[in-house]
């Protein structure tokens, strides 16, 4: 698998998502995210935001066009390659994402343990460090069902920023979140961008990202006629 390290990290090239599979409007979507960029996408409907993030991850079949991640078209890859590439995406989602049969610590580290050969101690140490950064007393070991929604949100942030994600698909983690989470989140976001990660931050409410306005590269709106560029500033 020949991965491109220069050029757009994510490229939606007139991608028309299947309406039957996703519920997204079947119109061409075009967007580019370069390494280190932070793109805000305003999506009023959380279900559409999740489906859009799925489309960026190559989970939504396309009627036309292409979605390329790190220079590779999702549709031209085999299952193993697709999964390996998705292992480089950190994601916070509104969809239920905590397996009930695993402890939260395992669910947080699962992606790293599955896709990398990093020593277990190193992965656990990073997870514990990020947990503290996001306001948890340590790496949570209880089952996800036993954690409060605020702690689950923090754990979701830890999971998304684990390892060195190349792309972050963040579905509005700051909505209805504890106030102290904002600083930790923006700090982690900046660190990730400094390391070359591209960020797609899906928001429902424009007020949420205003504190980070200067860091935002571009702003889009997910409307019925596709992605519409919005002037910032």
């Amino acid at each position: 698998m020949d991965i491109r390290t220069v050029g757009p990290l994510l490229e939606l090239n007139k991608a028309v998502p299947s309406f039957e599979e996703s519920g997204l409007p079947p119109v061409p979507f075009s967007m580019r995210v370069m390494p280190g960029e932070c793109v805000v996408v305003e999506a009023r409907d959380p279900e559409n935001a999740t489906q859009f993030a799925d489309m960026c991850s190559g989970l939504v079949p396309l009627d036309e066009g292409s979605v390329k991640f790190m220079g590779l078209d999702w549709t031209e890859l085999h299952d193993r390659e697709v999964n390996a590439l998705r292992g480089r995406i950190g994601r916070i989602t509104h969809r239920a994402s905590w397996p009930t049969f695993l402890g939260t610590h395992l669910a947080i580290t699962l992606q790293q343990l599955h896709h990398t050969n990093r020593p277990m101690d190193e992965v656990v140490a990073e997870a514990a460090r990020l947990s503290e950064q996001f306001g948890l007393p340590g790496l949570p070991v209880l089952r996800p069902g036993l954690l409060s929604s605020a702690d689950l949100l923090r754990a979701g942030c830890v999971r998304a920023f684990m390892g060195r994600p190349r792309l972050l698909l963040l579905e509005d983690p700051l909505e209805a979140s504890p106030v102290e989470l904002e600083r930790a989140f923006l700090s982690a976001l900046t660190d990730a961008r400094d390391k070359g990660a591209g960020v797609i931050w899906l928001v429902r409410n424009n007020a949420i990202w205003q504190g980070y306005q200067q860091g935002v590269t571009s702003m889009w709106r997910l409307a019925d006629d596709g992605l519409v560029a919005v002037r910032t500033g």
Partner: protein
Amino acid sequence: MSEDNLTPREGGGDRDPILEADALPHRGRKPFVLHEWLREKLALIGRMTRHQARFFLIMLGASWGVIYESFRSHSWRRTVRYEFGVTLNSVVGGGLIATLFSGTLTGVAAVSQTIYWLGLAGLAKMTGSILINVVIREIAPILVGILLLGRNGMLSVTELGLLTTGGQVRSMQAQGLDPFLLLVMPRTLAFTLGGFTLGILFSFAALLTGYVISRISGVITNPVWTFFYDVVVAMSPADYLIIPLKFITVGFVVGLGGCLTGLTATNEDNLRTLLPRGFSRGLLIVMAVSVLFSLDL
């Protein structure tokens, strides 16, 4: 727009063009065309056949997938090994007492009775072969299969079914975690190994209990090793292959069937539909394997 449509319609007028258009298809019946009728009926039969065979075909494909992937070193990542270990521990460790207890009950109910009645009929020499053919080859795989299904198979159905309908499986895919590789393969192989282990333990417990009961009641006077020697001598070379293969296959299909029933759940499913489906499928699979191995072998 034509002029007719622009003409204002009087209230309560005699003709409503919209209602008229709606009623139009119902006004005249379609003429009967034989080949159209035949095509519809054939399509219906095809749909029903495909629907009934769907799970069987999925099972066949997934069986090959599990076997194929299990021989690839890349498949055995640490997360997969972890899931295999946890499931094996749950199948063998969790089912050990229940299996030994069932084996003991079978020993009391079936083995000791067989020994007693064969001794009474003067057919004591056939004890070994009867025990092998009836208890070990036929009863043990079915009972172990049912125990596996009830204890762990239904758990897999529920867990994976809820993960699928809840959207967690989709989230796992978004992280690049293939549910087949991470859940189905290790669980199926753990069930396979667990089926063999529990089957052998069940057989041993049944035979030992049967011997103890018979010895206490004075039906047989042989020492225990003579009894086991008679049983072992009564085994044909084919039995050494078929008995372990039967235990292994029962474990494999129960594990795979449970996982696939869970993973193929739809949004319309809930526990009330999933559990009966999982149980009936599992039971049918166990019986089918048992019958398949008994066919002139």
